[in-house]
Structure formats: structure tokens, C-alpha cells
């Protein structure tokens, strides 16, 4: 049996967020900074009620966690993508972006494709509903480039006919994208 592992990034794509888990067309989000992509799964905070007559917890209580987050650093500032991430006016004739004072929360779907790390398999992570805030990372120095630092708060979606909310999908495919049927005979 092949192993399913998730590793480095092959590509990231974006589209308008979907609350129903359906995206028709994806656009590329190129030039990702090395090591900048981090998906954080937040877990609930545990507190315990202990027993006076013993050392073990009697009951464990779990307070719900904040939603999961994803961070991405981008090396390039493609005007089309910048218009998605910031409140800007873009004049293509002069390639000038004019930034508004207010912060924009970009509502995007994100699809991350990993590189094949083991057994020729890669993973496609699709997050349909993200609230994305964008800042800058790195000084403006000769040995760095200013990065767009995206922080996505992962929201929920609900497919037609479903009764529960979901957050993302992970699908393992062959290196060329072929779907794998893992049914045990």
C-alpha cells in the first residue's frame, strides 16, 4: 500500500469564496516564498475538574477553538491579485496601484497542490471559504523582496444536501493528477 503524505507546495490557486463547496475556475497565485505556507489547526482548550480524593481528572472540558488559519507569503505583487487582496484603484495604462486607507478582507477559495513527496502521490487541499487579510513582510533591502503576507481565516462551507458544516477537502492523487480509487476489494 502506498503512503499518503503532504509536503511542499507545487502550486496555489485562488477563486472567489464558495459557501457551497463549488468552484468553477481557479486562477494561479504564483511565486510563493519558500517556507511561508503554514496551515494551523487550532484545537480546543482543555480544562479539567479534578477529584479531591485522587490525582486524575474527573471530567475534561473542552472550550471550542478559534477557526483554523493558513498563511502564505508571495514574492510578486501581481496587480490582478493585489486588487483581490487590497482596496485599490489600478490604472493599467500607467501600471499604478492606488491604495485606499481601509483594510480589505478578501473572501477567497484557495487550492493548494503539494509536490509528490512519497510513492508518487500529491495532495490537493481545497479550502472553499477564507477571509484573507494581507500585510507586508520583509524590509525593503537589497537582499530581500517585499512579500505579500496573506493570513487566511478558514471558514466553513456546506454542500447542497449536507446537514453539517465542513472546512476543507484533502484529496490524494497521482503525480499527474489522476484520481486514485483506494477501495479495498
Amino acid at each position, binding site marked *: *500500500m*502506498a503512503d499518503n503524505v503532504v509536503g511542499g507546495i507545487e502550486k496555489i490557486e485562488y477563486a472567489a469564496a464558495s459557501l457551497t463547496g463549488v468552484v468553477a475556475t481557479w486562477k494561479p497565485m504564483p511565486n510563493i516564498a519558500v517556507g511561508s505556507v503554514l496551515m494551523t489547526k487550532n484545537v480546543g482548550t482543555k480544562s479539567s475538574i479534578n477529584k479531591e480524593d485522587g490525582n486524575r481528572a474527573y471530567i475534561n472540558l473542552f472550550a471550542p477553538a478559534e477557526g483554523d488559519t493558513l498563511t502564505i507569503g508571495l514574492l510578486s505583487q501581481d496587480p490582478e491579485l493585489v486588487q483581490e487582496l487590497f482596496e485599490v484603484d489600478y490604472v493599467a495604462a500607467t501600471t499604478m496601484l492606488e491604495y485606499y486607507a481601509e483594510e480589505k478582507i478578501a473572501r477567497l477559495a484557495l487550492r493548494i497542490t503539494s509536490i509528490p513527496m512519497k510513492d508518487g502521490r500529491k495532495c490537493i487541499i481545497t479550502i472553499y471559504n477564507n477571509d484573507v487579510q494581507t500585510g507586508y513582510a520583509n524590509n525593503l533591502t537589497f537582499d530581500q523582496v517585499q512579500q505579500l503576507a496573506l493570513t487566511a481565516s478558514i471558514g466553513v462551507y456546506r454542500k447542497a444536501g449536507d446537514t453539517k458544516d465542513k472546512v476543507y477537502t484533502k484529496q490524494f492523487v*497521482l503525480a*499527474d*493528477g*489522476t*484520481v*486514485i*480509487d*483506494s*477501495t*479495498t*476489494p
Partner: protein
Amino acid sequence: MEKVKVNNDVFVEATGTLYKAGTEHEVSDSLAKRHGKNGTGYMETVKIAAEKPEKK
């Protein structure tokens, strides 16, 4: 067994078989059902036309 036309590439891990889109295969009923109209939709059953009885 059922004859199917493959609409989307599928790799079946259990048998190590790659079914390429556009090809036709004789596959097990369970595989045809899994990827048929009510499954993933990656395969569709090929209907074999009934032979017409010869006129005498």
C-alpha cells in the same frame, strides 16, 4: 462484468490498473457501480445494442 467507457482517468490501487479517459474496458460490477452515474461519474456503462432477429 460490465463494459464501460472511461470519462476521467482513474487509478485503481487494489489491482494497479490505470483506466485512461476515452478507453473502454470490461470491469467488475462493483467498479462500474462505484464510478458510474450514481458514483463518481468517471465511467459510464456502454450499452450493447440487442441483435436483431434474422428475417426468414
